[in-house]
């Protein structure tokens, strides 16, 4: 391809866009199978009376969605945010606080969760994105901690003790008090989220954001106000994660500042890296792997974090490109 005249196909593929289901045929099958299993297995488990797996899967899906949103800025925009869990917390509180005051409509909760998260992203992002590198990592972390302390100080809403959500968000078309319906809603949100990221990263806007990741000085010289584009991406990711938080809050029926502690942000980041940054389904893969390993280890020992931490370090030292990269390389050789 490199030496010959450009074929139409070569030009068409000029951006090397992350295609929705992966480039190789086998890769596509694996992706589709994986997403189908993620939908079907929990439902089968539920029908056979095993509700634990349905609950566990709902949690996985909510956090996958959060990881997908983080991947938009981390994987495609090169913004290493260590404060993404703040949006999960904000989203969850935007369900909990109105519910506490008696406003139970989901048509209020979900837009509010996305709106307030977007606003928080806009304000903090405006400061964070003036900085680079390590500064950015630490400042995102600091702002998330600020949100954490803010909710901790709100004694009206339980402060440290958290807040119980007695009734899930009321949506007049579906009833998410039903666990299966909530699971399906979360799954639909995740699928939509992945598709949205796919469209965004291949759009003009996405190309600009990816250009900023690759070489920001060049983007500026080309005439792009990189700050505005990166901030917009940051806001989109924040809003998406706010929605993930609202779903998670509904699922858990209990929310606390702990949901946005900085270790949560670290876990989210690790899910993305583990799965493979800058891939569409990688974050889902990473979230599944992370939560399943956590679940298995914690079944064996209360000290599960010890082997987990060791795994984390080993994976940083030895796995390049995350699980997606591993699978990709496996397919190439196999």
């Amino acid at each position: 391809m490199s030496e010959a005249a450009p074929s139409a196909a070569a030009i068409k593929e000029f951006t090397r866009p992350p295609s929705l289901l992966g480039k190789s045929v086998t890769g596509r099958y694996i992706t589709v199978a994986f997403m189908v299993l993620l939908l079907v297995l929990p439902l089968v488990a539920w029908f056979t009376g095993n509700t634990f797996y349905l609950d566990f899967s709902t949690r996985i899906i909510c956090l996958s969605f959060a990881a997908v949103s983080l991947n938009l800025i981390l994987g495609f925009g090169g913004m290493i945010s260590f404060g993404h869990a703040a949006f999960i917390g904000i989203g969850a509180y935007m369900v909990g606080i109105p519910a506490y005051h008696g406003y139970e409509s989901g048509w209020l909760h979900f837009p509010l969760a996305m709106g307030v998260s977007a606003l928080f992203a806009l304000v903090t992002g405006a400061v964070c994105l003036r900085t680079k590198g390590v500064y950015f990592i630490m400042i995102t972390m600091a702002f998330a901690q600020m949100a954490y302390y803010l909710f901790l100080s709100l004694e009206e809403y339980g402060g440290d003790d958290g807040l119980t959500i007695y009734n899930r968000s009321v949506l007049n078309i579906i009833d998410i008090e039903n666990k299966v319906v909530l699971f399906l809603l979360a799954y639909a949100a995740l699928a939509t989220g992945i598709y949205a990221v796919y469209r965004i990263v291949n759009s003009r806007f996405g190309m600009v954001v990816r250009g900023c990741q690759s070489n920001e000085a060049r983007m500026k010289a080309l005439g792009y106000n990189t700050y505005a584009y990166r901030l917009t991406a940051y806001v989109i990711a924040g809003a998406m994660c706010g929605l993930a938080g609202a779903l998670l809050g509904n699922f858990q029926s209990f929310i606390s500042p702990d949901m946005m502690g900085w270790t949560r942000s670290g876990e989210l980041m690790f899910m993305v890296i583990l799965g493979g940054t800058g891939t569409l389904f990688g974050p889902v893969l990473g979230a599944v792997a992370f939560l399943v390993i956590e679940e298995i280890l914690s079944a064996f020992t209360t000290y599960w974090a010890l082997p987990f931490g060791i795994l984390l370090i080993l994976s940083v030292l030895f796995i390049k490109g995350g699980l997606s990269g591993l699978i990709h390389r496996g397919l190439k050789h196999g």
Partner: protein
Amino acid sequence: MSTLFLIQFLNGLQLGVLLFLLAAGLTLVFGIMDFVNLAHGSLYMIGAFFCATLTFWTGSFLLAVPLALVATAIVGLVVETGVIRHLYQRDHLDHVLATFGFILIADTSVQLIWGPEGIAIPLPEALQGQVQILPGVIFPAYRLVIIAAGLLVAFGLYWLIGRTRLGMLIRAGASNRTMVSALGIDIKTLFTAVFALGAVLAGLAGMLIAPITEATIGMGNDIIITAFVVIIVGGIGSMKGAFIAAMLIGLIDTLGRSFLDDMLKVFIPVNAAETAGPAISSMLIYIIMAAVLALHPQGLFPPKVR
């Protein structure tokens, strides 16, 4: 009011010196190795637990501190040579993830060894009392010791970096890596030594505060973020910036928590002030950080271009 202010001012200084001890280690490790160490707070915690155990073994806090410092240094050495040194060439993202793994390991290991409960450390008689610092103003003697110890270390670091051969190497390493190698100095050993020094400073901070707060699991995870705020405000890599910012943040945080709601009551209704006061004061240092960054994206004292 002015008495209370003086006491809170001293409390703010005390927080400031602790933050400085942490920020100094972060500054050294980042400034010289370009390494982001999230697990720095774990060394703070480990220092506190070592000190607790050694206090019970030796029967004396004052004897335990130097021993615990040595033990913390050894942990620093082991961690650096075992894992950290393989990460210097990696990007910051890998640093962040690997040291995040360390936090999990450290927290769980401490729980395995010392159990889930916090450990109180008894102080020697001489340090337990209160002293009268001004007529009618008394203040815990031990807190004054913390402030004095912190300032002493700050002076020591100033001397170390400005006046000694090691300091010269550190400054050279920060500005010119190849030059240090060209001088025939083993850069690996230098990096290990610097990392261990950072560990000792963090450990010292942990053992100084432990008699007041107890040694608890995860005690480093909150304060480390504040230490990050300090080095961001001060300018990452600048020791002078770290010192000034540490004092500033320590004072603002402490005074804000004590006096903000009273100050707000002047402007807004009392009950509103009582709700808003804690909320705003909990965010105060982050707002300060944002304000500083809006004016100086590199912090107050950005180090010279490397």
